[in-house]
């Protein structure tokens, strides 16, 4: 089984929900007022040590705005001491030359959020000068020499701007343009319903991104986080839907069985995507070492619950008529909540 990501075994950490912005589409409901929602640095260092031992080799920091987390540098130093690769997802507005100087050699990739041309970007960021600040941050990061890419949240309005977005990214020397469809989670669920990505938007975006990928091949890879139904049908292991034996679980590391892993800002470690139902959490690192939690998770049969969700989603996809492209992470997260409403015992038996 390989899931959707191969030899890179990723852990995404949300050390804080504090952010200097209040974006309309924020999946984690982060903002300036959330000063208390943060994890202890030592707790996270222990977690990173344990995650490395469990086979994960990439630590990806998100948030909130991770650059506002005072322990970020320590965590990056610790990650590097273990030989792990690191990335930081940022809104780019707080990047300065001085800050980046300290992070040289500690961050392998900065992923900067870009929502579209200036007007659209500012509108979604809920800030009249977000784009201007982004440009300043961009200038700083280019001077630092640290590799960076852009992450774009695709909306019903932004697909028409993909050419501009790709051109902007390439002109500024981005190493990557990653496009992820807007998910109705967090603040987006209340503030961006009208921007929800419908099926036709996905199809249009896909075709444009193919053309753009051809244009920028080798200059700037373009990544689109959707799967095709036919591909998944032929490769069920890509979504953890192949038949597997529970006995094999105990012989495997968690990284071989679940990738990525997500640490939410309250300490819960959940499968594959932020917002996954905590009923299926591996553990909470604020009251248990991850090394113990993941061992219990694998030995007590809890992993089966995750695999059954995956199978359920796979069946839904195969039974859906006319579905060509989909966001697997959104489907599986929604399914985890839908099934959480059922009696846990009746589902896991």
């Amino acid at each position, binding site marked *: 089984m*390989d899931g*959707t*990501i191969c030899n*890179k075994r*990723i852990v*995404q950490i949300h050390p804080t929900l504090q952010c200097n912005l209040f974006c309309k589409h924020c*999946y984690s409901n982060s903002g300036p007022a959330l000063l208390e929602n943060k994890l202890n640095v030592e707790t996270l260092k222990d977690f990173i040590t344990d995650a490395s031992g469990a086979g994960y080799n*990439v630590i*990806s920091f*998100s948030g909130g705005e991770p650059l506002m987390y005072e322990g970020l540098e320590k965590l990056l130093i610790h990650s590097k001491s273990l030989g792990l*690769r690191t*990335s930081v*997802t940022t809104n780019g507005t707080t990047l300065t030359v001085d800050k980046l100087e300290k992070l040289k050699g500690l961050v*392998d*990739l900065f*992923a900067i959020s870009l929502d579209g041309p200036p007007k659209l970007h500012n509108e979604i960021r809920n800030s009249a000068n977000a784009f201007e600040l982004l440009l300043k941050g961009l200038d700083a990061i280019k001077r630092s020499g640290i590799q960076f*890419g852009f*992450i774009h949240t695709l909306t019903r309005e932004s697909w028409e701007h*993909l*050419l501009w977005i790709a051109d902007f990214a390439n002109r500024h020397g981005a190493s*990557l343009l990653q496009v*992820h469809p807007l*998910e109705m989670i967090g603040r987006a669920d209340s503030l961006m319903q009208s921007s929800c990505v419908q*099926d*036709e938007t996905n*199809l*249009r975006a*896909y*075709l*444009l*991104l*193919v*053309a*753009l*990928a*051809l*244009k*920028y*091949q*080798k*200059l700037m*890879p*373009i*990544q*689109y*986080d*959707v*799967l*095709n139904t*036919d*591909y998944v049908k*032929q*490769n069920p292991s*890509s979504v953890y839907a192949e038949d597997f034996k529970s006995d094999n679980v105990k012989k495997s590391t968690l990284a071989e069985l679940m990738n*990525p892993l997500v640490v939410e800002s309250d300490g819960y470690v959940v499968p594959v*995507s*932020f917002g996954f139902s905590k009923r299926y959490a591996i553990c909470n690192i604020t009251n248990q070492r991850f090394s113990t939690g993941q061992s219990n998770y694998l030995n007590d049969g809890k992993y089966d619950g995750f695999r059954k969700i995956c199978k359920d989603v796979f069946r839904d996809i195969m039974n859906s008529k*006319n579905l060509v492209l989909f966001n*697997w*992470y959104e489907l599986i997260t929604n399914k985890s909540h839908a099934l959480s409403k059922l009696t846990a015992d009746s589902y896991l038996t």
Partner: protein
Amino acid sequence: MEQRSLEEALLEQLKYSNVDREKLSDAVRTIVEISGKTKTKPIRIFPKGIPYPDGWGWWNWFTKKEELGNFINLVVDSNAVPSIYHHIFPIGIPDPEGWLVENTLGAVKGHST
């Protein structure tokens, strides 16, 4: 005739024509089928907020010019996106090793058919 790039012509087509969902789906399926025959790496996707650690997208299907040509011809012949064929053309990047090159890739040039 105005020379536009493939992506500019495609955007215009997608924005202003009445290409229905069925044709869009067919175009996507066509591309997926081609990628299934030519891709060297499996498809990878990522959840929200996690960038591709290698900086490599899964769009690196077309390793040879011929494959790109096949793709273009398929889109043209299938009429999946009608009238785009007016702006589709061979992309003349003279790299004998194929598309995966370090430099020289720039704006797509084109000619009308």
